[in-house]
Structures are given as C-alpha cells and as structure tokens.
C-alpha cells in the first residue's frame, strides 16, 4: 500500500500470512462478492479455495490465504462480515492451532535415466501415482504447503514437471464438544 499522509500512524505491526475461513450461503455471485471486496479495497489474496460443505444447509466454505498487518487483516474480516450471504469469518491464526493441507497434481516427464530417482523421491514424500487411461506418470501429493514446496523443488532438479496446486485448506484443531 502507498504510504500517504492519510495512512494511519499506528500501523506498525508486521506483515504476516493469515488463513481466513469464511462460511457463506451457496448462492450465485457469492464468490464474486468476496473476491470483489478484496480487489476493490486493495487487499491481497495469496490463494483461495471454495466448495460446498453442507448440502442440506446449502453452505460453502471459502478458505482464503492472505497477508497483511494485523490491522489490515482485522479490517478484511470486518469487511467480509458486511457481505449479506456471509455467515461467519474465522481467522485461524487467532484461533490458535489449526491444521492445513493442500493437494498438488504433478505430471512428471520420465525417462529411463531419471526413472529410479523420480520413484525414490516420490516414495520418500509419499507422492502417489494416479492410475489413468493413458498410463502417464501423474503423481498426487497432499500435505502442508511447505512439504509440497520441498517436493516440487527437488523433483524440479531431476526432471521437467507440470504442476497444479489447490492452495491450502485449513481447519481449527481446537477440541470441540464431540458428544453431540
């Protein structure tokens, strides 16, 4: 953001990565409302994930990874809550502990010379080969983003790959009353 004389003097906290979980009514335009708020107000989206999680209540869960000072992120949370179909916004970093994971699908170019190394690495990272009708070497790896990053870095050193990543999804790991 530009430093202007109108900028708040109290914005001294450091820029950090935050994961926000947003529960929304699954109705047309709801995703556009959420991402439009980010672009319109100049906030960042590092990754975004959305899917319906409750068929009977018609609720979708949006996971947004963003970065900013705690003041900016708190403003993002409040702006999200103004959107009519938004049920709740949770900042998983403020919730305390959370578990996050993402999925990557990787098309690996394999030759006789690198085959052994590739399979060894995939074994090491527990990347699973996905069977497909063309019998090409497509691997799936799931887990924390850093682990996926490391795998991609190492496989890149061995051979050429094509990658698609889901971006992280996350859930609070705080113990809930499980008796219900």
């Amino acid at each position: 953001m530009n430093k202007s004389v109108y900028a708040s003097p109290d914005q001294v906290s450091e820029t950090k990565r935050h994961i926000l979980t947003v529960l929304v009514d699954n109705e047309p335009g709801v995703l556009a409302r959420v991402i439009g708020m980010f672009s319109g107000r100049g906030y960042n989206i590092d990754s975004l994930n959305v899917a319906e999680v409750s068929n009977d209540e018609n609720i979708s869960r949006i996971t947004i990874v963003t970065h900013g000072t705690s003041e900016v992120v708190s403003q993002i949370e409040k702006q999200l809550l103004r959107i009519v179909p938004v049920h709740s916004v949770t900042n998983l970093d403020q919730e305390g502990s959370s578990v996050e994971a993402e999925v990557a699908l990787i098309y690996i170019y394999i030759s006789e010379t690198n085959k052994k190394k590739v399979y060894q690495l995939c074994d090491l990272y527990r990347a699973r080969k996905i069977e497909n009708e063309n019998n090409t070497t497509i691997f799936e790896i799931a887990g924390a983003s850093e682990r996926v990053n490391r795998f991609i870095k190492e496989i890149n050193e061995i051979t050429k790959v094509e990658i698609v990543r889901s971006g992280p999804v996350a859930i609070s790991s705080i113990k809930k009353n499980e008796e219900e």
Partner: protein
Amino acid sequence: MNNEITGAEIVLKSLAEQGVEVVFGYPGGAVLPIYDTLFKQNSIKHVLVRQEGGAIHAAEGYARSTGKTGVVLVTSGPGATNVVTGLTDAMMDSVPIVCITGQVPQHLIGSDAFQECDTTGITRPCTKHNYLVKDVNKLSSVFHEAFTIAQNGRPGPVLIDIPKDVQFASGTYEEKNKIIIPSHRLFEPSPDFEKNKIEEAVELISKAKKPIFYIGGGCINSGPKASKLVREFINMVGSPVTMTLMGLGVVGSSDKNSLGMLGMHGMYEANMAMHECDVMINIGARFDDRVTGRLDAFSPNSKKIHIDIDESNINKTINVDVPIIGDVKQVVEKMILIWKDKKYKIHTDSLKLWWDKINKWKEVDCLNYNNEGKQIKPQYAVQRLYELTKNTKTFITTEVGQHQMWAAQFYKFEEPNRWLTSGGLGTMGYGFPAAIGAQVGHPDALVVDIAGDASILMNIQEMSTAVQYRLPVKIFILNNEYMGMVRQWQELLHGGRYSESYTDSLPDFVKLAESYKAVGLRAKTTDDLDNVINQMIETKNTVIADIWVTKEENCFPMIQSGSAHNEMMLSKDQKQDKKSAEKGKILV
C-alpha cells in the same frame, strides 16, 4: 393454481405491502410488463424523470427527507448503468434505496442481447446487496428481504434485477410476515451486547476536562428520536458539540453547545477543539478524510469513544479507545440512563476553562468575509436566503463544490432531515433531483437547491420533471461562471492555472427556466437580492434564481490536504508550509 399472479403484479403487490407510495423511474423494453401493471393500479404513484440518474437522486432526496425507503424503477442496459452513480452515492451516504432494474429474458442472458448488461456484476460493489431473480416464486421473498436489508443496520441501496420473462411468468405471492430472513443476513444489534463498553464510555466522559461530541450522519439515520436523545445527553454533560457535513441538524445551530461543522471547511473553533480535546465522543461518524485532515496529527491527546452501527468503521483509519457497536438511539438512551443513575457530573471549573478557551477561538470569527460593494458575495447570498426562509419549513439540498460548503457554513439547520447533500461521493448533479424527491415527500414545504452554475447543468433535464408534476422546487444558483472549487484548488495548489474550470457558454438561466414554462429570476447586485429571494419563495411554481456572485471568491476557512486540524487557513494570504503543501498536493 388459482392464486397465481404475474411477476409484474408480484412486484407491485410487494411494493404496496412495504408501504411504498411513490416510485421514481423511467420505462424501457425490459420493464414494460411492470409499467403495464403500474398503469392498471392507483395506489402507487410514479414520477417520470428525464434520465435514470435523476430517478435515483430523487429517490435519495425522498428517502433522506422522509426517513422512508426510496424506490427506483428503470430498464436494463443503459437504464441500469445510469443509476450506478446514484447507487454509489447512496452506499457512501447510507441511504435506504430499493432499485428495480429490468433484465433481458433469461434465455438471452449472456448473448450480448439488445440493452443487455451484467447489472448485478456492475452494481455488486456499489450496493449493500443485489439479486438476479430467476424464479417468479422467489420474487416476493426477495422484495421483502431487500427492503429489510436496505433499512436494517447501516442503511444502503439494494438492487433487484428481474428478467422480462420472470415479469410475465405466473407465481405465488408470499406476504411480508411469512418471510423468515436468517439472522446472518441482517445486522442485529443486541441491546446488552455492549453494556460494559457503554458504562466505560460514560465514566470516561464524566472524568473529562475537555470533552467534545463529534456527531455524524448515523444520528440522522437512527431516526428523529436519536437526535433528541443526543441533544439531551449533550445538554446533561454540558459539552461542546461539532457536526459533520452529514450530521448537520442533529443538534440545532442555535444550541448553546453547538460549534457548527468541523473538517476541511469547518469552523475554526470546532477543529481547534477537536485537536485539543481530552475525550472525543464520536456518535455515528466515520473519521472521514474530509474531517480528520492529516491522520498522524489528528487529535493527538484524546481518548476516543466511537459509536457506530457498522463494525468496519471501528479502527479503520483512527484507532479508538472505547468502540461501541450499535444503533445510536439505543446506545445513547443507555448512556443517559447510566449518567443519571450514577449521578455523574463533569467538573464545573475545568469545563468552564474549556469553554473559555473555545470562546477565545470563536473570536477569530472564521467565517468573516469582505462584504463591500454592490456585487453579491456568495456567502451573503446564502445568509440572506437563510434569513428570509428561516421561519418557513425549508429543506435545503445542494450540488457539490464551493456553494455546498457555503451552504453548510451559512445556512443554519435546527432540525435533522432538512439538509440533503452528497457527502461521501461528492456527486455534482445530486441537488436538483434530490430536491424533486424531497418536494414529492413534502408537497407543502419549501425546497431549495443551492446550486453552482456548473453542477446544475449536470441534471438540468429534470426541469421537465419538476414542471410536469407541478413541484415548486427552487433552484438557487450561485453563478460565478466557474467550477468554483476546482478553480480554488488550482489557485492554491497549481499556480493559478485555471485549466478547464471556466464554464464558458453558460445558458441564460432565466430563459432556460421560461423555456420549460417555469419562472426565471435574476439578481445582479445586492440591491436585487432580497427581492429575488422573496419572489422565489412566493412563486408557486418551479423557479430558477440566477444569482450573479463575485467570480473568484474562495471558500474559507480551509484545512488544506496534508494539514492538521490546528493548521487551518483562514484566508489566502496565509500560506501552507511547503512540506505539507507538497505532500497534500497528491491527495484529493
């Protein structure tokens, strides 16, 4: 089913059940079924404007002067895009509006059909919420939810886009009380939620030595009772109070505690008091940049209490010590109870010292201007307008620019809902259609649009509307042949290079009025002024009063961009320090 009616009929029935009396609109291909139904009924009146932009500002004027929700009906494509400015204006100034737009039939959506546009896409960021209704059976529930959302919490505009086939289709109507709106879709202030904060705030006020109330438009949105309670509480505390542009009228101008407006063109004493106070009580204002000036020097030594119904306004630009989220009426009512209950009283001696200091600032007489000669000073024109209309029930609207600020400074408002101006968005062309809307809501009142020669031309086509409905709206043009505020900034910040701010080839406003079969009047010198104003008031017809004012008058006092509250400029001889001026130049 025999209970089925058409979508268009559902629209009208929903409006009727919501108590809508008047709709501002303009017909077109995609809303013809609704207009056909409108033709067959008598309960809802339609005001035909001359451009859709006029319809939405008229609805805003109607809403803000009556406290009801303004309703707009326009067609697809250009009809919808023409209301975008007004929707944004209503969003910024929190005006409850329900805007109905026609859409091409569903099977044509996405085909670039004639007069098709992505209305819900375009209006998403400038409405509180919007709908594209695809199922006729959902139409009535959408309408009832839309009205609730427009009025609930912080009010704002809601848009309903209805494809033409849905208007023709048959479906069932559901009554308002049968609709259940899930609570997350609304703002539900819980009365006990902020109890501790309210107690903390009241205690803080009781210990203040130099308190000031900073009142905004939220007090007006909370209803007339909120203004009454705010006045009562301020009187109990005995504290000075200043109001934002949007809050004028919450506390009467003649009230002994009132310091008038604050901010960029606010009163010297109000801004100085904001700068030096020890406890600031913000009720329904949002620390707008026109109010705060330079943020790092904004009221540096005060504890700040902020009452706002919209949580996103808390700590947005200014960090506050005691935030209270809730409706002004409910919160202030509680504050009064606590104050009485605990028998709080501000220390009399320190309050007296505070007032002494404020009275010294008042002696600066910041609105003073040189009123010599026969040429009419714009300030003088507004002063005379006030003197000659103060005993009549008067609504004042404005366009945007110097005339708007002079109106805010020199017209004295004693009641809420009498002052209608575009504050947040600053929309030139707002005032005249807003005056039309206010006049529709108050047929017997005097409604005056204080305008500039440039602004009035932005929606001059609405002359036809005013004359057609015999609305005796008065347009009071402070004519200096300039876009005055642009010229002022060019003089102060751009070396006096008046790039494109001279309004050449202005129409003859008297003849223009006459061509619409309205009345045109002109005042060229101070000798004509009172006569023209009196004639304007007495005329039972639409009037344009063309007031020729001095051309290069500047609006003072002024906090220049990049300066702080205690660095007010009282006249143009006073220069801003170079560093702030350079920084301020890039701001708006």
